[in-house]
């Protein structure tokens, strides 16, 4: 495509664009070259989002970056520069370091799990003819529940420590004693609570994205495979998965970012009223939420945000190295 771009091939008088002002071409008006028109289209299409992100995100990001080198408690004005002290303070904090280790392990486990579950559901839902809408809605519906509300249901109805909790009621059928699921640390049963909650809330969301990807696979490929006598697993491996590559890589990137920034379900499950402290695991964002939004230490909070960003960049670069960031074909 790049090679053909240089020839002014678009001067065709057969242009059927209704918006054209006059049938006769204006005598001295210069047409845009291919390169200029490309650049113009690119600018027009990306400008709104770049301007918006610039105003609402990058101003704040730049400001936070400067704050990360300032002492800024209960203020966000700059000026009281302290160099790298905020970064040093966080990195010397054992609990913050632990939270970074924990989140990497968590990500390594939850991302494949979420990926497999949502892709699996998408393939199953996409395979059937009747009842597709029902199943799609059933799996997407949890995404409509906010974290706070979902955590309520998990804490109070499914995994509460009293005998009336659903998990304990089911356990009682097998003669188990009522268990405080969230508070039991050996074995760490709270992970069951956290992981089921997270999967329930997120799987449908990613499933929808996979379904959109599946539907853009041309059906004739499947027809050809069926004629070749390929079974479901071979069809999946030789057609579905390769054709979903771009979608998968993008979804994987988003899942990695979401996992490394995990906050809501941990916070909602472990916070007691307004305070934290007794939680058995803490994510980096939980730590920073307390520092920045509760204690109002924006210097240290911003430093932590950039440390976490650094970790995210490293992990996603690693992913890109392994899988490529959905390169396009040219």
């Amino acid at each position, binding site marked *: 495509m790049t090679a053909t771009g240089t020839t002014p091939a678009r001067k065709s008088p057969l242009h059927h664009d209704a918006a054209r002002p006059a049938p006769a071409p204006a005598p001295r008006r210069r047409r845009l070259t291919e390169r200029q028109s490309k650049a113009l289209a690119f600018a027009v299409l990306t400008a709104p989002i770049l301007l918006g992100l610039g105003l609402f995100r990058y101003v704040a990001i730049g400001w936070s970056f400067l704050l990360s080198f300032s002492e800024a408690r*209960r203020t966000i004005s700059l000026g009281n520069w302290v160099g790298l002290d905020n970064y040093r303070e966080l990195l010397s904090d054992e609990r913050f370091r632990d939270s970074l280790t924990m989140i990497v392990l968590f990500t390594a486990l939850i991302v494949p799990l979420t990926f497999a579950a949502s892709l699996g559901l998408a393939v199953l839902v996409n395979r059937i003819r009747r009842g597709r809408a029902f199943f799609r809605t059933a799996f997407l519906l949890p995404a409509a529940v906010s974290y706070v509300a979902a955590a309520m249901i998990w804490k109070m109805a499914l995994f509460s420590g*009293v005998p009336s909790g659903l998990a304990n009621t089911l356990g009682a059928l097998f003669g188990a004693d009522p268990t*405080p*699921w969230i508070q039991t640390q050996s074995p760490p049963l709270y992970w069951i609570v956290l992981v089921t909650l997270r999967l329930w809330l997120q799987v449908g969301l990613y499933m929808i994205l996979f379904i959109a990807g599946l539907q853009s696979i041309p059906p004739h490929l499947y027809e050809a495979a069926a004629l070749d006598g390929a079974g479901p697993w071979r069809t999946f491996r030789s057609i579905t998965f390769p054709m979903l590559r771009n979608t998968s890589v993008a979804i994987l990137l988003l899942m990695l970012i979401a996992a490394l920034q995990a906050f809501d379900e941990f916070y909602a499950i472990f916070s007691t009223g307004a*305070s*934290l*402290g007794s939680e058995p695991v803490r994510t980096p964002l939980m730590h920073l939420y307390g520092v920045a*939004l*509760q204690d*109002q230490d924006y210097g240290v909070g911003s430093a932590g945000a950039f440390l976490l960003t650094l970790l995210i960049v490293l992990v996603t670069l690693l992913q890109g190295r392994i899988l490529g960031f959905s390169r396009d074909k040219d």
Partner: protein
Amino acid sequence: MPVSSALSRRGFLGTSLLFVAGAAVACSSNPQETASAKGAKVTLTQWYHQYGEEGTQAAVKRYAEEFTKANPDIAVNVVWGADVSQYETKLNAALLGADAPDIFELGDFRAEMARKGQLEPLDDVYGAAKDGFNKADLDYLTVDGKLYGIKTIDDVMVLYYRKSLLKKAGVTPPTTFAELADAAKKLTTGGAKGLFIGNDGIGDSPYLLAWSQGVDLIDGKRVVYADAAKAIGGLRDLHADKSVLLGFTTDWYDPGAFNQGAAAMQWCGLWALPAVEKALGDDFGVVPWPSYDASGKAVARLGGWTQAIHSKSKHVAEAKKYLEWLWVKQADIQIDWAVKYGFHVPPQSEVAAKTPELSKGAAKDAVAIANKNGISFPAEWTQAMQAEFIAAAADIAKGAGAEKTLEKAQSKAQSDLDKQLG
């Protein structure tokens, strides 16, 4: 192809537009206009957090209107805020921006707000009435010799116990930690546990244990809670005995577990007393958290809400006038606010003594406990210190060495405190 898809696109947009139109019509009226703002020269904005009790919002609006009736120049725009866990975040954001309230509530009073110049000193609001306020409250609100807030209600937290269950188990209300642990163990039978201090099995108990050994959290400029390693180490015994209730539906600040018989003793607030009375009649009593041993002291946590004035408010004088009128002078309003919706103690002892609801039964005991045993968090206490301290206590409950764990947390808290004091 383009025709059908263009149609469907239009359909999609059309549906959306219908929604927008409907919602826009529905949202076009603004009921928030305050009628009293007309004619007043100054309008103060006053923020409250969301109280759960019915009638509270109408009550504070009524107080504001009464004030305007007496002072036609000053109107008050009451803004009802977020729930307690989010209110502070919202307030802190507002205080940094251009739309900050003139007067606001604080759940945890933070001395740093005063030191950073966010709060206006209120000594002249108290005036001669100062001596009539709860002494623990005044200590709490004093930063470097000046008072920066005024308590509107005191919430005392106490240990509720079921009389009949204690009698059946052959124990008396505990007066030492050893008795508490023993009672909790004996009261743990069948499905019920002896003691409920929080769903995490920790709750506020680390504070209470430290205080009950006679140790403060912060002494002057030093964090000293590691001195209470002995008492806080007691958490390990409670957990090893499996006598504390974990993971109930509602947390310790709700009387649900106690009322349902899931625990025979529960640490909870005076606010729960009407609900407990309704559920259990007179089959309950209240005591303070027991003294750790003979050399310690019985304690109770004192919470509640404080009102303060933003130092950058354009109407500091009017705001002070309003707070003085409301929380120093209007005894009737203070009683109304304390007991007509929820169940709290008015911070002026003379007013508390005049409150009929607080002069009988368990409520009377609780008020006596507030005066005799009440302790507030230190005003220098922060979320980071709290998280560090509670995490240390949770580790101890799991079996970590108390002294070492607390010392580590303490040195971290000390550096926080040093930063705060500048």
